[in-house]
Each structure stands twice: as structure tokens, then as C-alpha cells.
């Protein structure tokens, strides 16, 4: 932890904060572009069921008649205080709805991304070390198949075969709906059920988690396989790999111990992108598996014309992607010291 590294982290942190503010500004601009008058804006905030006269009053009460820059400052400070608007369906602050649904999704997405990353690293390394053999082509066929398939197809096929066909795993819901949910302490079902020592719920939740997580892993591992294969092919041509062979190390040691460890560094940057893609992809996975997380809620909100909800979810997911990007940047800095100079 030298000062240079701290400076690097601080710089990235400042960048992340600026990016968050810019992102909120973008949402703000978009809202003001599609709803140029205070009444239109008020309609965005409270939903479509009020007559124009009432909208005028609501606009005044929400401060939407103020100058744009005042509204912008209110909006940004509101975001950092956790004020994302009020849900038009539930009538409670948006942040409470998100607090309830987002951890469920995050749990699933993180596990799915982890699966995808492990699968991608493994298959990519195998393909690179067996270049131009049937194994390589097999890996390529596998990832092309899952990557090119529309995400809902992957989910539905898994659901049909493993769920309805073989009756191995449950096909919908976060856990068995008969069980009572453990008291929300952190919001994450995993931690909550462990804290409450509710092992039945934990077991049910784990079984329900498997299919969505596998789906997310399958639809996201292709890009990691491709990058791993490319960097591994480069790494296997390097002099230090030849030296390792000359030292008399076996192929397995060289591939996994030498080449692989050097090749995975650039993949860290892809992790954040994968995370971003899978949080977005969670919408469709949750829709297929009726997994009641933020994505499922977003689709329901869209059908119910709940504008504040969908905007709040967009902002929160964007925010979490920026955080993931920041973490990936710092990790990259730890793993590859050369990056800290830039």
C-alpha cells in the first residue's frame, strides 16, 4: 500500500463519483426531454391516473415548477440521500421497494457471474492449450451455441428439461412460497436465513437458485471464454512459457501454473462488463423463472405504467455497475502494477 497506489484508488474513486453524477444527469435530461412541461413531469412522478388540474397542483407540490438547475440539484442530492421518488403502485418510497428486491437479484447475479467466469476461464484455457484440436472446436461450438441463443431460450430449455422433464429442480419463485421468509436483516436471503438459522428456507432457496444462476452463467460465459482463449494463446507463445517447458515442467503445470496466471489479468476488466450485462440479463431470466427480484419487478412495473419505479431501478442498476467497474479497476491495479501509472 504505497502512496502511489492510494493515489490511484483515490483517482478512480473520484472518477466513479463523477460518473454517477453524470449518469443521474443523463436520466434527468432524458426525463426533461420527454416531459418538457411541469405537468408532464408530474405525470411521470405520480402515474397516469390524475386529471390535468390536479397534475398542476402536484407539479407545484413536488417543486417541478422551479428553475431547471434548482430541480437538478434537488434531484442529485436526493439520489445521494436515497430519495428515488415514490412508487405509484405501493405508495411507499422507491428505495424501500428496491431494498426488498435488489439483494435477491444481486445474490443470484453474483452467483451466476461467478459460474460464468469459472466456466469461461476453464473452457478458454482448455481451448487455448488444445488449439486446433477437436476439443478446441467443441468448446467453440458450446460457447457459440449458448451465446448466440436468445437468453430466454436458454432459460426455457433448462426449465423444460431439468424442471418439468426430470423434476430435478423447482422452476419458479425465489423459495417455496409456503415457507415464511426469514426476518430481513440484510435483505440478502442467504445471510438472513443463516442469521435466523432457518435451514429449511435456506435449502429451498438454494434449490430455487440453481436454475436461474446456471442460466446466467451459460449466457455470460462465452465472452470470457473468447478472451481467455485469446490471451492464453498469446501467453503460450511467450518466452517465459518456453522457459518453463525447458525447465522440464509438465504441460499441466505450464498451462495452469504459468500461462494461465499471466493470461487472466486482462480478464478482470471484462468482469465488470460481464456483471453489467448479467444484471441487465437478469430481467429476462427472472421473467422466465418468475424469480421475484428487481428484474421481475421492473417488468411488472412496466406493465403497470409505474414510471418512477422503472427509472429508479435503472438508476440503481447503473449505480451498481459503476461500483463494479470501480472494484474491477482497483483489482486490476493490484494485479498488474503497470496500470497504476496511468
Amino acid at each position, binding site marked *: 500500500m504505497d502512496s502511489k497506489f492510494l493515489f490511484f484508488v483515490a483517482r478512480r474513486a473520484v*472518477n466513479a463519483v*463523477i*460518473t*454517477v453524477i*453524470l*449518469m443521474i*444527469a*443523463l436520466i434527468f435530461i*432524458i426525463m426533461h426531454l*420527454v*416531459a418538457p412541461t411541469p405537468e408532464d413531469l408530474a405525470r*411521470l412522478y405520480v402515474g397516469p391516473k390524475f386529471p390535468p388540474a390536479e397534475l398542476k397542483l402536484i407539479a407545484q407540490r413536488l417543486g417541478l415548477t422551479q428553475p431547471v438547475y434548482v430541480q437538478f440539484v434537488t434531484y442529485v442530492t436526493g439520489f445521494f440521500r436515497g430519495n428515488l421518488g415514490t412508487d405509484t403502485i405501493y405508495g411507499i418510497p422507491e428505495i424501500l421497494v428496491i431494498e426488498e428486491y435488489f439483494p435477491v437479484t444481486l445474490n443470484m447475479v453474483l452467483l451466476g457471474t461467478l459460474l460464468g467466469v469459472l466456466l469461461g476461464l476453464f473452457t478458454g484455457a482448455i481451448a487455448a492449450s488444445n*488449439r*486446433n484440436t477437436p476439443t478446441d472446436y467443441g468448446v*467453440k461450438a458450446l460457447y*457459440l*451455441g449458448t*451465446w*448466440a*441463443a*436468445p*437468453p*430466454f*431460450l436458454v432459460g*426455457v430449455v433448462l426449465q*423444460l428439461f431439468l424442471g*418439468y422433464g426430470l423434476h430435478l429442480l423447482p422452476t419458479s419463485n425465489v423459495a417455496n412460497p409456503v415457507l415464511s421468509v426469514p426476518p430481513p436483516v440484510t435483505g440478502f436471503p442467504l445471510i438472513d436465513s443463516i442469521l435466523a438459522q432457518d435451514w429449511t428456507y435456506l435449502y429451498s432457496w438454494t434449490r430455487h437458485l440453481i436454475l436461474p444462476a446456471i442460466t446466467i452463467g451459460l449466457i455470460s460465459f462465452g465472452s470470457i471464454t*473468447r478472451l481467455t482463449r*485469446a490471451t492464453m*494463446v*498469446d501467453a503460450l507463445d511467450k518466452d517465459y512459457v518456453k522457459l518453463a517447458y525447458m525447465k522440464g515442467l509438465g504441460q499441466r503445470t505450464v498451462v495452469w501454473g504459468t500461462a494461465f496466471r499471466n493470461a487472466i489479468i*486482462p480478464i478482470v476488466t471484462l468482469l465488470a462488463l460481464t456483471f*453489467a450485462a448479467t*444484471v*441487465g*440479463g437478469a*430481467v*429476462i431470466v427472472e*421473467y422466465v423463472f418468475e424469480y421475484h427480484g428487481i428484474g421481475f419487478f*421492473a*417488468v411488472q412495473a*412496466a406493465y403497470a*405504467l409505474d*414510471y418512477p419505479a*422503472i*427509472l429508479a*431501478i*435503472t438508476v440503481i*442498476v*447503473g*449505480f451498481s*455497475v*459503476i461500483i463494479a*467497474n470501480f472494484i474491477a479497476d482497483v483489482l486490476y491495479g493490484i494485479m498488474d502494477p503497470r496500470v497504476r501509472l496511468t
Partner: protein
Amino acid sequence: MGDGHTNRLTRFRLFKGRQRSPSVAVPDQAETPLGETSGIRFIVGFVRRDKIALSGAFGIAIFIVFSVIQGLLELLGGYLRNPSLSYLLLPSDPFTFHFGLELAPPSLANFPVGLLGYDETGRSILSRILYAAPRDALASILIVVSAIVIGMALGISAGYIGGWADEILMRITDAFLAFPLILLAIAMSLILGNGYLVVLITLMAIWWPTYARFFRAQALSLKSRGYVEASRLSGLSSARIILRHIFPNSIDPIVAIATLDFGNVILTYSTLAFLGIGVTVGVPEWGSMAAQGLSYAPRVWWYALFPAIAIMAVVVCFSLLGDRIQDMVGGRISY
């Protein structure tokens, strides 16, 4: 990316035994990032010798040519108010109900109308899949081209000008990159009204950040090349340097990314259609057909499966070709 082609460059030079000397102004061609192994002609020549990539290219060609003709016919049919014109090429009318054929399974009986089975109102699924093709083709081409144009303008100016302009442009790019595509498209279609155009505009507005980052990296690495410095010393304006040197030399590697991206756009578009975003009621669309078909699955497997396979086939074609082009421009031709 940058690393990839520097590697290749050094390897290539090693191979030819030519030394790189930054002090000598070399003619442009010799110092392009891709050396002699570049250019559309080379790519075409290479693809021709590679059966897998060739089949991908063949599939794409069929998809694009069919979509253009079919799309023009659909436009013409709409313009002349003569719907029969829009299904001139299709095996059957994709809109007329045929009661008695509801959810009939695929058969060779009424070839090729019944080849992929019928939907819940007895319309041929094959016809409906073919009718939907132009929308996907138009979406992918428009969105990728607009992403390249926007990304190029922002990325090259950020990389070439540097300093504060770079910082600001890259933060904006990061902010756009953070947006969850599907959620934003849902929000937009909710606020602006559900339609094809809204989805197109949203995707166009948000698809460019990866291209901006890529062009920026290219511009940064090209900026310090000998021939760019030489032209700057000889008094060329920045605009001319960007147009004459930076842009032509960074467009080649983009071909690979863009080819892969066509598939991504189609996937995203069909995912949105699956959720009912950006589709017009009654007009066939691959994603929405799959969604409707799912309510009859698994007994009526053909209704959901064939539209999904249509999406998959197109995306696989783009991936096969794009993968191989990427291998070439990234320098891994050692196959």
C-alpha cells in the same frame, strides 16, 4: 486490443526481419497497425479459404439480401395499400387466419407453408418468421452503424486531443456504459410510447460507448506513431491528420467487433420483443412470437422454438464470421 496488435506487429516484424525506427519517416502503408496483413481484400481472401467463416458469411448474405428485398416489398405494400405485395416472396399470407389449422404441427403436407407448423390462429410460422426478418436486419445495421459513427467521433477526439476533453468525454462514456440497456429501453418505451422507432432510438443512443473506448485506444496508440508525428511536423491540421491517418488506420479492427455486434443487437432487440417492448400488436416479431409460443409449450414446441432458432441461426452466422475476422485483425492467424 492495443496490446493485441502491438504483439502482432512485433511478431510480424520479427518475421520479416525489418527493424522499426521511429526517427525515420516511413511511408504510411508500412506503418499501418495491420501491416500488409490488412484491408478488406485480405479479409475476403482469407474468409474464402475458411469453410466455417464462409458458411457464416453466406448465411449473413442470404439474411441481408432477403431482408432488403422483403423490407422494400413491405414498404411498397404499405405505401400502395396493397398488402398482397408485401408477401409476394413468402410461402403464404402471414396475417390471414386459417381456422382448422390452429397449432397444427410441422408437416410436409402443404410444403413449404406448413414446414414449421402453425400458430394459434392457423397462420404459417415460416411465413411469419420470414416477414419479421427485415425489422431485425434494419435494427442491427442502423444501430451498429450509428454506434460506430458516434463512437468514432467521440473516441477519436478524446484520444487525439487528450487532456480535459479526454477526461470529460470518457466520463460521459462511462456513464452511458453503466446504463442497463434492457431497463432503459423498457423505461423509454413506457414513457415515449411502445414502438419500433422508440426502441431503435434508445438502442442507438446507448450502443456507442464500447466503440468510443475502442476508438480512443486506437487514437492513443496511433498518435505517437512516426507517420502521425511526421505529418504533424509538416504542418497538417489536426482535422486532416484525424481524417487521413487516424481514422483509416483504426477502422479495420472495428470490422471484427462490428460483425460480432450485429448479432448482439439482434439478441437484445429480440429480448425486448420477448418482453413485449417495441412490438406492434399483430405484426410478427421473432422475440414476441417466441413469447406467445411459450404459453403453449411444451406440447406445442414448434411455435416457440422455431422463432428462437431463427434468432440463433442469424447470430451464429455473425459470430462465426466475426470470430474469424477478429482472429485475423487481432493477429492470431496461426490457425
